């Protein structure tokens, strides 16, 4: 197994007013190249904290994270992030938002025409050619999220990190974007880590589902390998016994083994 991303004995402690808060402990995970990983768990279990660690936005208190055997010491464009709330700059058009990223990564080596071509290609990939000149406030939430994905993909990152990218969308738009994401990941062979709390989303998209225990001091509870053949079709899978089993396994973990979330929160 090729080790692309290695997370070794990672723990994260935050200093709060009430003293130290242990968010994550003893996280060990290895991600293969081209793999699609879903991080799932109840809210407050540190899924996003783990994603931020891989992104390099925060640094671990203990342990180490490696990408291609090099330590992740800070954020960088080789790890594209799709933020939960799209985080498009409102004063730039969709095209300009993507162009900002493209220019940063390829600006030193390539001419303007080529950069624009790349930007247009990334916007095409998420099917937004018609909205390219629009400002973020002029388009729908689903479209904004797609621009966010286009921005992340345009940098040709080694790892695509997504923090509940479809959480704020309605079910129909979400399904559409999930299908699109599957197509894109298939086409680009992107290594992807996605934080989600949607069981169907996790089973449909992932190669492995990393299920996390409840916080504080959360860690990886179980890892479920999803061996469904690709390309996957949601309508066909809905009646697939294997799919139903995977789904049941995740649900069981979340609602039986980690059911005490309410008490913990209270």
């Amino acid at each position: 197994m090729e080790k692309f991303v290695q997370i070794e004995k990672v723990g994260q402690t935050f200093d709060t007013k009430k003293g130290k808060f242990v968010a994550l402990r003893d996280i060990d995970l290895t991600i293969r190249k081209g793999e699609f990983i879903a991080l799932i768990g109840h809210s407050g279990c540190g899924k996003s904290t783990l994603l931020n660690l891989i992104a390099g936005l925060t640094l671990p208190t203990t342990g180490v994270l490696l990408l291609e055997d090099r330590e992740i010491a800070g954020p960088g464009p080789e790890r594209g992030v799709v933020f939960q709330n799209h985080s498009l700059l409102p004063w730039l058009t969709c095209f300009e938002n993507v162009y900002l990223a493209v220019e940063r990564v390829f600006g030193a080596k390539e001419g303007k025409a080529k950069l624009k071509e790349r930007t247009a290609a990334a916007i095409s990939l998420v099917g937004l050619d018609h909205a390219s000149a629009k400002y973020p406030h002029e388009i729908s939430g689903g479209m904004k999220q797609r621009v966010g994905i286009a921005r992340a993909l345009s940098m040709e990152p080694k790892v695509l990190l997504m923090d509940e990218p479809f959480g704020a969308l309605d079910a129909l738009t979400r399904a559409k974007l999930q299908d699109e994401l599957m197509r894109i990941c298939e086409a680009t062979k992107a290594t992807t880590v996605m934080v989600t709390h949607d069981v169907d989303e996790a089973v449909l998209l992932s190669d492995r589902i990393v299920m996390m225990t409840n916080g504080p001091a959360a860690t990886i509870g179980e890892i479920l390998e999803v061996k469904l053949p690709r390309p996957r079709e949601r309508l066909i899978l809905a009646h697939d016994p294997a799919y139903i089993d995977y789904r049941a396994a995740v649900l069981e973990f979340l609602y039986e083994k980690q059911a005490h979330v309410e008490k913990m929160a209270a």
Partner: protein
Amino acid sequence: MSAVTMGGDFGTEKPVDRAPSHRDTVPVGNINEVPLGGNTHSKPGAEVAAEPAKEKKMEKATTPPLQATGSPFGEKLGGLGRAILPPALGMMVLIGIWYIATMKGGSIPGPVQTWDAAAALFADPFYRNGPNDQGIGWNVLASLQRVGIGFGFAALVGIPLGFILGRSAFLSAMVNPIISLLRPVSPLAWLPIGLLVFKKADPAATYTIFICSIWPMIMNTAQGVQRVPQDYLNVARVLALSEWKVVTKILFPAVLPYMLTGIRLSIGTAWLVIVAAEMLTGGVGIGFWVWDEWNNLKVEHIIIAIFVIGIVGLILEQSLILLAKKLTKESS
């Protein structure tokens, strides 16, 4: 008297502020207002909007009922009346009180005298009889020029400084106590220093404007920089943008609204201070003019000057609000 004036002013200001927004909504609402005349007309109205090809035919159908009922037009007139009537009434009450208070004569001239003096004054606002006797137009322009220069320098220094302080916690901690110490000082206290340094009245007055304008500019810009949403900064970090790109593509557009607030506050203070500064330094300028007319005991001119200063201040403020609206609309 002054309290009444203040109250009256506030009364007028608010409705005037709202008036444009009312007018903005009226054209949009117009489409909706057509149906208000009766349900039968609502359908043609909607179709006009949907199918421009049939417009001419439909116009014939829709216009007569519009005129017949007249209710939307009446409503519009009512809306306009609501926007204009209260401020006009406030103004009339103010002038009425002024009139009654000065009816018995005395040192303060009444509205009629003042109006006559103003008519004479504004008949030739741009005359020049030597350096100490110039038209009111020149005086206002001279003051505006000082404010412009002092304010411009303040923006040139204050905005970049605000950016730096907003970006660096260390520098901010270093400079903030100094700013807190100096900010409450009346800008006029700086005037003697200005006179000493520049040896001339005119740059000293400009320098006073610089001093009073720079604080709001620094503070608001720095605050704006500190309040840039973390999301945007995360984007910058993930893309590993250069500091220059961070400033031009993320910080500047995000801080712009705060900066404009700083500019608006600054220009308000600057316009307040220039009158006082000019009273002390002399020369040409509306503040000096007030003092000169006091020495000439032309009280009606002082009252005119008060109105002129008020109106110019209002125009400055409103045009900046307008500019801010335009710029933030474009950027958001």
